[in-house]
């Protein structure tokens, strides 16, 4: 029986980009991100109307610093004080902690002091990045 040619699948729009920055990003508010990722907001006085347009996602803090852009959203599974220190140094606009990890109290104290909004989601890194990418956010790396 002759083999039929493999069906040609349309490439999803989100995967067409060749390099970061090749297309326009779609800024989102923290409120929209909170709803998309089913987040809990840990800094209760945070202004959720703040917009972010790029994402830094890593558990390695030097990775965040190597590719930082001002005003980016930081996604990480590292929940100790150094994650907030790095966010402050990199001028990150807000942090989303993944995998539902418990955030260190010293980290929360520093986030409140530096006025960095902190959100937490039970989703993992892959899903968080996929959802944000699907909604038009781009990576800073």
């Amino acid at each position, binding site marked *: 029986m002759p083999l039929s040619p493999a069906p040609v699948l349309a490439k999803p729009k989100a995967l067409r980009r060749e390099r970061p920055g090749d297309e326009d990003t779609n800024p989102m508010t923290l409120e929209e991100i909170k709803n998309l990722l089913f987040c809990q907001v840990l800094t209760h006085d945070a202004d959720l109307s703040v917009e972010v347009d790029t994402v830094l996602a890593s*558990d*390695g*803090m*030097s*990775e965040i*610093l*190597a590719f*930082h852009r*001002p005003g980016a959203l930081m996604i*990480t599974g*590292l929940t*100790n*004080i*150094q*994650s907030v*220190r*790095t966010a*402050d*140094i*990199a*001028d990150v606009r807000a942090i989303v902690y993944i995998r539902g990890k418990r955030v260190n109290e*010293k980290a929360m104290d520093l986030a409140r002091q530096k006025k960095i909004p902190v959100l937490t989601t039970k989703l993992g890194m892959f899903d968080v990045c996929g959802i944000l990418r699907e909604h038009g956010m781009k990576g800073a790396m």
Partner: protein
Amino acid sequence: MSEELFKRTFKIQSRNFDRAGENSSEIKGILKGLNLDSEIIRRAVVVAFEAEMNVVMYARVGTLTFLITDEDIHIDVMDEGPGIPDIEQAMQEGFSTATDEMREMGFGFGMGLPNIRKHSDTLKIESQVGKGTALSASIRLNSNA
């Protein structure tokens, strides 16, 4: 000859991960108060922070001297510690001698020294094994790497 505008030396507490980076955070505040270009500030603060973290993680004791002139920002970090046997190797992205404790803090993935080089205009590192390391970096105020 450039004119010295501000100089301060900070002591870095080795192994104190809770306070690690506080000096760099203070430097960020000082630079913001001087209304410098935000990109220059970010580069200087990343250099200071990565250098500070290296001392916290590896050395017994260290200092960070922060100097602003009318031409550039200097960050000089000196420590007493194990030193770096092969500086060229240490400058390669991904090379690391970090312990599990350092990695748990989110550092030690072989990006620290490369980050310092990436964000500075000049960089000089001298090290003696068993004695310590001296790192001297500068960022020109009119540069935008």
